[in-house]
């Protein structure tokens, strides 16, 4: 069983994703802030990271760049789950190394499908 780290400043988003993924027997670690997330990710070694873009202190896109520049964890796929729905944002997100760019509002079911898809591909 692999882990997913979810970072969002909105508690109910965390709650939804956690509920949905746990039901599918996927372990979930939730974080309310991107500050200190790198350490958590290094410790947990998740199979996937789900990020919000707009967060106080450190935005998701900045965090994403940090993660992608760290060889230890650069390989972990990242989902950007954000309210920024413009194409430009998506382009920027994808350029920053985001695997999937998902705009809010989102379907938990579709998210789960995507998560499972990515997790299964990654399995040796």
């Amino acid at each position: 069983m692999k882990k997913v780290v979810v970072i969002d400043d909105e508690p109910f988003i965390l709650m939804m994703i956690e509920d949905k993924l746990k039901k599918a027997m996927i372990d979930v670690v939730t974080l309310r802030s991107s500050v200190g997330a790198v350490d958590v990710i290094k410790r947990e070694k998740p199979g996937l990271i789900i990020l919000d873009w707009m967060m106080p202190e450190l935005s998701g896109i900045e965090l994403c760049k940090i993660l992608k520049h760290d060889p230890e964890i650069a390989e972990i796929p990242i989902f950007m789950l954000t309210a920024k729905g413009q194409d430009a944002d998506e382009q920027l997100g994808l350029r920053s190394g985001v695997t999937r760019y998902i705009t809010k509002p989102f379907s938990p079911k579709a998210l789960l499908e995507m998560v499972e898809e990515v997790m299964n591909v990654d399995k040796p």
Partner: protein
Amino acid sequence: MAKTRIIYKHIVIFLVFASLIVVPLTFTVVKQVNKMIAEEESVHPPENADYTQPHREFSDKLVGQLVPFVFYILVLALMLSILFSRGMLISLKGLLRGSKLMKEGNLDIRLPVVSDDELGEVTRAFNEMAAALREKTLELKRKDTYVNVMVDPLWVVDGENRITDVNPAFTRMFGYTREEVMGASLYDFFDEKNAAVIRRQIEEKRERGISSIYEINMLSRDGIQIPLLISGSPIFEGDKMVGKIGIFKDFREQQELRNELQREKEYVETIMDSIEDQLFVIDKEYSIIRANKVAMMEAGGHVIGRFCHAVAHHMDKPCWTGGHECPAQTVFITGKNYRTTHQHAGPAGERRFHEIVASPIKDSSGNVLHVIELIRDVTERMKHEEEIFNKNRELVALNSIAGILSKSLRADEIFTKILDRMIEMLRMDGGGIFFIDDAKREMVCQYHRGISEEFVKMMGRIRLGEDVPGRVAVTGQVMTTSDLSKDQRIERSFVKHSGMKGYCCIPVRGKERVIGVFCLFSFRTHYFTSEEENILTSVGEMTGIALENIKLYEKMRELYEYQRSRREEEQAQILSLSTRLGSAIELKDVMGPVLELIRNIFSADFVWLLVRDQEGNFILRSASPENGKEGKLIYANTVSSIEGYSAERRVPTVVGDIRVEAKFYLASDIGNSQFQSVIAVPMHIGEKTVGVYSLYYLGTREFKEDELHFLKIIANILAVSIERSDFYLKAITEKGLSDTILQSVADGIITVDVNGRIISVNKAFEKMTGVTATAAVGMPICDVFRYSDDNIDFRFSLGECFDAALNGGRMSRETFLTSVFQSRNAVLISATPVLDAGGGVSGVVNLVRDISREKEIDRMKTEIIRSVSHEFRTPLSAIVGMTEMILEEDIDGKRAKKYLRTILSEGIRLSNMVSDLLSIARIESGKEILKMVNVDMKELLSGLSRSFSPLVEKKKAEIKYDVDAGRYVVGDEEKIKQVLTNLIGNSLMFSDEGCRVHVSVTDTEGGIVITVSDNGWGISEEDLSHLPERFYRGRHGQRIKGTGLGLSLCREIVKMHGGSMEIRSKPGAGTEVVLSLPRREMK
């Protein structure tokens, strides 16, 4: 069973018949046969036994034959009877089945009517009964269904308060199943307190057959208290009450709302009470529905429910009836904030000035429901202002009178003008000037205003010592009265009952005696202040002097016809002098030339003017030729001097040779100059000696009467001028200082002298910092805040502002202030220099304004708008995602509830955001009407440049305004200003330090073109295409906070003006915004 019983009966009957028929029949037959055989045998005795044998067997045979037959026939009869009673049996069976069905609850019964007998009737009746029952049951069922589908729980209790029925909603809400609660006492569902409530309700109301609705908390199965609204009603059967029905309304939500409301209310009340000004909430009937503590205290406690005018004015009518504007009314009509200063009557009837800020409370559709009035007592300020205004008015009047006197020598003109001025100045209704006819000891009214010729004629001549003017003429004392008709001093007077109330009489003093009386009256009660009386006295004296002057002049004309040319010259010089003095407020500049002029006229060698201070010291004011510094002490009050002597005697004093006059001390400044003749002329205003001016001659000089008189006039003019100037200066200082203080009374104020020591602090300062005034005064300003290390920034900012103010500038800084109690607030420091008359800085007023709330509001507003799109999508995530999860049944019941609650709250949040956005949109939607005026672009831009100067300074930017004078644009000034502010602001914002912004207004064929260009960061092509979108925030938007609405707003405004806006930009090269407005003429 019926069947069996019937068959039993048949069988029993059969058996009875069988035994009744067969047995007797058998016996009878056997007996008869035996008898018959016996008879026969007796007649024919049997020949042998064989013959008898058949006989003997016969009866047995017969019986054997008979009995089975009878039996079989009976069996047949039994069966036939069963067959024939078949119909009845079927009917009975049907009825049985029917009743059984009915018991089972199936009422759809229609029994066939088989027999025509009574049972048929019974069957028919049964059918009818069943049908009726069915109808009834259906009706009941419908009711039942209604009860069952009812959303609100319900219970039915019997006379002993035991539950006899509940509906499914009851189970849903409380968790008890129907079976569990049946027969339970209703008190089992409440805790003690609520049980008491419901018991009381039941005993008081329900038992007597009264319905009632009340709130109660009920225990659910889980032991949770659920707030409810129970509506209970009794159930009657006939006249007897058989039970009660209770319908519950879920009150949880209402309870929550109510709690929220309560919290909200408390919050509002706390805010209200913490405001230092009075605060009222007024409804449409003008009655007060809410007031804060301050207001309560002011009004003496009970104000709620009273009319606002009753509280504020102590009147029983709204105040607009008295010609005032009522702020509340204005707000109700316009729906906009309104600010005014209002005169109210205090509790004791004294005048009070209140500054009122009235704001509307609107409902969602924009109707004004209530008005909030914030009332600040500005009586002190107003009184001050009024005082200053009055003084100013007096000075102006005096000045103009002096001007008149000095400009004209024609008596008619002078008197009428003085009369007019005085009436105007004191706001009187009329007046007159009486002259004394010495020969007849009478007075004649020669000039008058506000009274008719007839009245004057009627008044005729007033004898000296009679009536008010007469008495004044005799006593030579000013006499004023606020209400003539009630004045006890005046017994007999022609004017006493003429309707005049405010009245004053001023003696007009000539050289030695009173030559006339000056009267002013008002039809209203007028209280004459001491200042007014002083003015009146001086006016009287001036008038007298003028009159004397005129008389002398006329005499002189006769006597010195030959000297006419010279006199005229003199007069002209006096005029010029007087004009100079009259028009100049700053005497300092003109005093020198004036003395020079006097020196020339009287060909003196040295002239100086000494003013007397409050202690009686003589101080140099000016000298010709220049001698010493102004303000130098010449003679102390203990020193005997010619100037002091003349001031004492109040007449010009001439000394032939000052060198030999031992009793006068001569100041060292002039002691060596060997002056011989000296004339010192005192300057008076009323009783007050203003100063003395003296003319010194190296030789001897004698003064003629007319010269002396001339000098006196000059003295008077100088006196008035000096006094006026001093007065003015004082007033300016006072006004400036008090204004600065008063305007910001709610803010912390620290006045500091030029050395940095605190002169005074106000109460708000004490409150803000926790440092008392006594502790603060006298301390160096920056040391006051040393109590906390957190104030380093504050002290730095304060020092900066103070320095700026000392240099004559104004400066504001935002920083944080930590009070003695360790509370930290955002504050705005602004330092303003207090300038003295000479333009030098005499002190600094530091204003410390608590802006934490504004800051907070600002931050929130920015935050909301900045993240509107984010915020829209986020609640949508909750609604969409959670709904999906619930539909997918990913989550179980309890969690689903939590989800639903989140969905609800997010939905509400969304709707709130929509309405916020709508209100922003409404501002933009152009419902506002443009106030078209001719806008002078030059003026507008210079105004803008002023407002941008701090930012420009900060950014070290440079804004170049390229506009010709007289370039006009027709449009709404405010709106155009807004657009330009936005654009220039954008330019400054999105650029590096030292940027250059160029604003130009040009007139082209197509209309007026306004261009704002800069050399800032520019806008990327990507962002450029998105600029018209609302809430769009470009690449730089992440670095700099904004709404994403500014450009949209500009575009809207330009569109409203019928123009267009174009943005050209290149990243790194700057941006150019071109506004084209159509040219139009102002109608």
